[in-house]
């Protein structure tokens, strides 16, 4: 059942992402990406295996030099999306384009170029650095793998990127455990920077750090972006961070993008009820700011074999018509305002904006 519903979604609709296809200003284009994890074995012809649909039909673009944010609760598939982009997970379906070229059909040289150009910084600065390697080897490893640089050249480049992230080149001989969390995250950034990439995937880059250090690291990331024209894919559950860093963002729920557009537009006037609820749950910038807390009924539905229709159906405070088309079929993202995309069903939109 779930299989046939999924097929009708993928190829029939226009790629649900802004811009023409392929756009010239997008460095990464993700189209109809899916990651389904099989749970338990099915019985041929009798029972299809269950699937955990971590990412289900996700499409978006990352433009050169921009920061694109992916937000959502834990388990909504944002980190899986990032791992799919990094080729750490094999997608179940869908395509990833790098500079207009499909990764799946890319030549070996193209894949190498992709590997060089797309780097990553992960959440936990303690787990991200091999404790048995010196900083010089950690930061130099990508250079060793992907370039023909000699030892002294690598040393020089390592020293340069260490300076760029605010560390001292003399610290290259130390081991990771001799650094604080913030410094370790700087080392991770230096490593990601070593190959002069075009895109860096940031998986909650500051959420493991002390609050006092977060701003420093975010500012460092912003400075590096300015200087090198880097594009960031930033996965985060912290809305304040996303608001500060991202030009555009997408809100995910249960493996599906619910709303996508300019960060400012989404923060100023969220269209989707889920987005509105997510923002109301975040702490305001000042304790005196009064606002209404919006609570959605029900709980996050299990991503194992979700219903074939709108995934938000079970959470909406509005009445759901069980015979409506979007109760049986997955609704697409619609461009409601220029550059502002949302999943539109009779029960998913914030009322004031939905009915003018």
């Amino acid at each position, binding site marked *: 059942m779930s299989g046939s519903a999924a097929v009708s979604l993928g190829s029939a609709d226009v790629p649900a992402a802004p811009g023409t296809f392929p756009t010239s200003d997008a460095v990464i284009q993700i189209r109809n990406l899916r990651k389904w994890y099989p749970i338990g074995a099915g019985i041929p012809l009798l029972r299809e295996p269950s699937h955990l649909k971590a990412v289900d039909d996700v499409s978006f673009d990352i433009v050169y030099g921009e920061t694109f944010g992916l937000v959502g609760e834990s388990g909504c598939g944002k980190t899986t999306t990032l791992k799919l982009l990094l*080729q*750490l997970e094999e997608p179940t379906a869908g395509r990833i384009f790098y500079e207009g070229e499909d990764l799946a059909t890319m030549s070996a040289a193209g894949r*190498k170029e992709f590997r060089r150009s797309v780097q990553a910084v992960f959440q936990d600065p303690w787990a991200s650095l*091999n404790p*048995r390697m010196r900083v010089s080897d950690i930061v130099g490893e990508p250079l060793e793998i992907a370039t023909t640089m000699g030892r002294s050249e690598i040393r020089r480049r390592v020293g340069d990127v260490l300076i760029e992230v605010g560390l001292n080149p003399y610290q290259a001989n130390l081991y990771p*455990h001799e650094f604080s969390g913030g410094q370790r995250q700087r080392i991770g950034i230096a490593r990601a920077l070593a190959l002069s990439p075009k895109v860096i995937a940031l998986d909650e880059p500051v959420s493991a750090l002390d609050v006092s250090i977060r701003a420093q690291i975010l500012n460092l990331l912003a400075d590096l972006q300015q200087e090198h024209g880097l594009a960031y894919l930033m996965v985060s559950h912290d809305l304040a961070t996303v608001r500060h860093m991202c030009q555009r963002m997408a809100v995910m729920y249960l493996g599906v993008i619910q709303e996508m557009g300019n960060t400012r537009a989404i923060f100023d006037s969220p269209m989707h009820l889920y987005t509105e609820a997510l923002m109301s749950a975040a702490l305001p910038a000042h304790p005196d700011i009064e606002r209404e807390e919006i609570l959605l009924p029900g709980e996050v539905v299990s991503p194992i074999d979700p219903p074939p229709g709108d995934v938000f159906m079970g959470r909406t405070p509005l009445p759901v018509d069980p015979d409506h088309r979007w109760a049986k079929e997955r609704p697409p993202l619609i461009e409601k305002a220029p550059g502002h995309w949302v999943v539109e069903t009779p029960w998913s939109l914030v009322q004031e904006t939905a009915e003018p």
Partner: protein
Amino acid sequence: MTSAGPLQAVSSEPGRDALSSTPPRRRVWRIFRSYPVISITLLLAIIFGAVAADLLAPYPATHGELRDRHAYPALLGGDSDHLLGADSVGRDIFSRLLYGARVSLLVAAGTILIAGSLGTFLGLISGWYGGWVDEAIMRLVDAMNAIPVVLLALVLAVALGPSFALLLAVLSLGQWPAFARQVRAETLSLKNRDYVQLARVAGASTGRILFRHILPGVFATVMVVATNQVGTVILAEAGLSFLGVGVPPPTPSLGGMISDGRLYLTDAWWISAFPGAVIALIVLSLVFIGDWLRDRLDPTLRQLD
């Protein structure tokens, strides 16, 4: 000791001086605490004795004078010139110990080298690839536990005749599963670490990840397993020698010497006791050195010593 220091220092000046400059006795103590000095010295002495057996041994190892039968150790006041006594055919125990240690250490080192490399390799592959590769290797490990190695050794020795190579092969066969199991478990926990994933993001090949990121991580475990297994190997070799499928007599081995003396334990305890003591010293030293190495190889603990 240290906590009482400041109180004394306030009341008397000389006490303060004593605290500021480390006395030589404490410096020696610090070395003893940070390195397994006794274990290393003992092991080196035994290895030296084994290597230089030809120069050090006062008597030939393989034949003795029957009139020296069961000579009491001269070290303990016996009236012969056999330092650690003589066995039931009058062979000098000390000389046989030197040669026996050589054979036993050679067997142990050879076995650990072969079984360690094989087990580590299979454990890495098993943990990294998972799936049917893992399944196959782990079932092989289980199968090894179901095969009585001693019986296998007996059958092979009858079929092929006892030899040094056969002994190494059989002992290695019995030892590699211990390495494979430990290395597999360690690999499983290492392979999902963020830094391994980031190595893949940087474009590292599987071989590079295994050798640069996983192998150094499991090396400490391998060292500890190796040092702990040496004792088992030496004992297993003793057992096999006892059954006549180990090192072929009259070549002395520590295990063989213990079994030689088992009939005379009440009359001549020294025939078995001295090789037993040497085995115990070797095994204990290796255990202490193994523990020290494990801590030493972990850079996060290095700052603590």
